[in-house]
């Protein structure tokens, strides 16, 4: 599809409707069944009692957080894939999420538990990892898929070891909070987190969108992009910082939710093409809907027990990853 004001607007409108449907479905489904009548009353503000609390205070904050996290992770995946020219690049696979989790765990360990300071340290961990991955991968010349993925796997293994070490040495009280990062869970969602993440997502996403045309050229190659007028190093630096910020805040709020940034941009590309002016807003919106649905599944499949949403995305994403690896070089990429 050609990117025009009209096509981008239409796609956004269509996907916004999908986001809304996912939100309604997520509100409706859960351990406790809500009748359509109750739901209607709730929409009109006439519902009270336990069902109202469940909808307003438990399901809604969780869905909103899922939507924002899904949007952020998908945007980050799209940016990494564009800059690194690699369809398998994704915050979790590259180890950037792991770096952020390490930073967040460190924040817990030294006892700064405020949302902001935790996000800040997670951001630090993410930035550090991005540049570590780039340094390692660039040393080998071009950024080849195998190098990139292997580097990410190794970095993840290292961070998992660090987190395991922390778990082994820390007192039990903090244990839950730390285990939380490893699996990626939205159960602890509250509206305060949404208030932090909403402006970060909007500003970060908007800033990334401003670089959509740059990303179109960067995905051709650094030399081509520079020849056509992109200040390659500066643009990459800005984008990496924005993406690290998004990953850092996201991970500090929801832990390690993998593969969203892999699956969502890819599915969008298959349907809408590769132009980042379409891809970025579509991936953000589709990612929001996607993670809301995934979290709804996590809440309901083994109810009343619950799965961490990271388990659901990994169960979907890992086979997807293998599939992509198998058909690498096909016409979609």
């Amino acid at each position, binding site marked *: 599809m050609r990117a025009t004001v009209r096509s981008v607007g239409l796609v956004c409108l269509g996907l916004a409707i999908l986001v809304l449907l996912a939100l309604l479905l997520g509100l409706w489904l*859960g*351990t*406790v069944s809500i009748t359509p009548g109750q739901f209607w009353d709730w929409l009109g503000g006439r519902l*009270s*009692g*336990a*069902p*109202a*609390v*469940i909808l*307003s*205070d*438990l*399901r809604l904050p969780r869905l909103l957080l899922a939507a924002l996290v899904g949007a952020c992770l998908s945007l980050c995946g799209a940016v990494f894939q564009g800059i690194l020219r690699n369809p398998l690049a994704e915050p979790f696979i590259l180890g950037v999420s792991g770096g952020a989790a390490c930073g967040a765990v460190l924040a817990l360990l030294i006892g700064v538990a405020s949302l902001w300071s935790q996000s800040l340290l997670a951001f630090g961990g993410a930035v550090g990892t991005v540049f570590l991955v780039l340094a390692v991968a660039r040393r080998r010349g071009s950024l080849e898929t195998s190098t990139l993925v292997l580097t990410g796997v190794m970095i993840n293994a290292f961070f998992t070891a660090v987190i395991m070490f922390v778990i*082994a*040495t820390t*007192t*039990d*009280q903090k244990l*839950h*909070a730390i285990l*939380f990062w490893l699996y990626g*869970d939205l*159960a*602890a969602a*509250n509206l305060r987190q949404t208030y932090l993440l909403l402006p970060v997502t909007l500003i970060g996403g908007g800033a990334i969108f401003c670089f959509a045309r740059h990303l179109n050229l960067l995905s051709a190659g650094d030399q081509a992009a520079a020849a056509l007028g992109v200040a390659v190093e500066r643009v990459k630096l800005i984008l990496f910082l924005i993406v690290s910020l998004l990953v850092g805040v996201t991970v500090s709020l929801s832990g390690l939710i993998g593969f969203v940034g892999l699956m969502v941009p890819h599915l969008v590309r298959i349907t809408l093409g590769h132009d980042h002016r379409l891809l970025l807003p579509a991936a953000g919106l589709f990612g929001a809907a996607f993670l809301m649905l995934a979290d709804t599944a996590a*809440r309901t499949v083994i*109810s*009343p*027990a*619950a799965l961490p949403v990271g388990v659901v995305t990994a169960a979907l994403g890992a086979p997807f990853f293998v599939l992509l690896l198998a058909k690498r070089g096909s016409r979609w990429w």
Partner: protein
Amino acid sequence: MALAWVLLWAPLTASARVVKDEMGRQVQVPDAPRRLIGLTPSLTEVLFALGLGDRTVGATTWADYPATARRLPRVGAYISPNLEKIVSLAPDLVLANREGNPPWAVNKLAALGIAVYVTVPADPLKLPAGLERLGDICGAPAAGRQLASQMRAQFVEVARRLKGVKPRATLLVIGSKPLVAVGPGNMNHRLLELAGGRNVAASTSQRWPRLNLEFIIAAKPQVIIISTMDRGQDLERELAYWRGLPGVGDQPGVRVGWVSSDLIDRPGPRLGQGLKDLARLIHPERFAPASGGRP
């Protein structure tokens, strides 16, 4: 807004009071709670032991004692309680455990206007007082006092039997593969000491230390106790493994036994029995039926 709804809808008990829970939080609890939920298996046991089984409206996944508790609606596992389910059961008092339940669940329930009383079990000797207080808070003060005095009596009896005994080097095995024992700061560690044992893993700094076999061989435990839920063949295999373990179970004078993990892991009404079982395993001579426990 939603908070106001909760307050409106929550059963309006005649009166309520503000108490301090074991974490020092201020909790407003109704004088006579009518809809109770314990967020760990041990707290469910406490509620039933207090005679409040018919006022208990929900329990966590593995809350299996007493047998009637199995019929209660489930509210998820204690490490990831399903808040939606809890809210839908409209409890007027929820009991939680700081070591078992995640902090966010407690905070969130409290933010929804639900009374959450948090217990912090650490020292078995303080458990009777804790049970008494729970009885008071849940509206069964007499039952609470009785539960506490029963447990105190069990503690006193164990202490009487073990009087003047020399602590024996003991390894309490929580898991064999990997080998996990109990460290200081763990309730089981205190229980082991009360039962006349000397915890060979006391020098470790963690609560659930992973040990290697070299360490065990060097520590020369005289008693090895397996804390387990297994019965039958699995238990026999486990016991045989430890009895035949070179340098540990096959040493002269080393005894290998087992204790039901539910009795010693759950800070509930059965802990006194758990202590007694441990003491009997470590110092069987003091529990000999014929000689009346005299050496």
